[in-house]
């Protein structure tokens, strides 16, 4: 079959099959196909090739959907647990932050009253508050965000990672 005289029409047929032909091009293609046997042959061969692509029936493992469902159910449960622990962690962080702020406020504003109540100096009360309240709260604030990473490393080390 001679292709030289029909190359531009073959190109249009390819464009049409790929889905990028314009309305005007399609119209001129239709008109050409009415009179040209060679180009109709090219289109038929292309359509046969495309139809041939639909002639494959790949066998699927009948047990595959059940395996996928089981894996999805387990993974969904793991993700839910992870989400809840992240939420708990977020609340713990907020609590630690509030404790830090309240502790600092108490140390600054109410140090004198505590000093009078416990017969201590203002400085001693502040040091006590820093030691038993503010420093632990700040430590929680700093350490909490690293917990998921540490737990992931620990699980990985133990071979428990997902």
């Amino acid at each position, binding site marked *: 079959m001679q292709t030289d005289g029909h190359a531009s029409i073959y190109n249009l047929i*390819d464009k049409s099959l790929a*889905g990028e032909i314009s309305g005007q091009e399609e119209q001129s293609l239709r008109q050409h196909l009415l009179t040209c046997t060679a180009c109709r042959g090219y289109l038929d061969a292309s359509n046969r090739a495309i139809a041939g*692509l*639909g*002639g494959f029936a790949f066998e699927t493992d009948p047990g595959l959907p059940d395996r996928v469902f089981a894996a999805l159910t387990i993974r969904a449960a793991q993700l*839910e647990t992870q989400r809840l622990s992240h939420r708990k962690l977020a609340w713990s962080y907020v609590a630690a932050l509030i404790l830090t702020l309240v502790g600092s406020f108490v140390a600054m504003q109410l140090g004198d009253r505590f000093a009078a109540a416990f017969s201590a100096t203002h400085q001693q009360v502040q040091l006590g508050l820093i030691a038993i309240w503010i420093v632990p709260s700040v430590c929680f604030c700093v350490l909490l965000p690293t917990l998921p990473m540490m737990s992931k490393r620990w699980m990985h080390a133990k071979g428990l990672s997902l």
Partner: protein
Amino acid sequence: MTLAATESEPERIARGLRQRDVALLQSLVQQYQCRLVRYFIFLLGTRDSVDDLVQEAWLRVLERGRSYDGESRFEPWLFAIARNLAIDHARKRRLFSLDSNDDHEPASFSPVSSTASPFEQAARTEDARHLAHSLQSLQPAYREALVLRFQEELSLQEISHIVGASVSTVSSRIYRGLAALRQQMDGGSHAN
């Protein structure tokens, strides 16, 4: 009117994925299982590991479902996930490069096997049997473009989004793939 009655199919899927609705995922698995298997086989040219990849693809859908916005169709998003998995898998096995930007580069992977190719095994029609050999030797990128366009009936834009290439590259792959198949169908009389 209820929310379910007004939302489109992609929106319904997006909502289900955001909620990690396992029942929705199960129905999607049933609906898309054969199509995913076919896509992986066209992409990789082998049946090996396809079941594992299908399972992994659905786990990724579950994990990353929140990134699907429901504004576009679900299929391109699903096939993009599947494609990334297939590329990772192929890289690990060093079989071939789907990322190659050079469409003229010959396929660097042609499985040498005494058994029939997955295409030969799956051919159910005379035309499919004619195409099976040609498909096996065709570049994966061409096979992929053909299956996405003519089996999944995706638009060029959607395919372009999945493969991360321009629309003109995608159409060029379709033309070349079609040319190879046509040649096989009619003994080369229409070769460009």
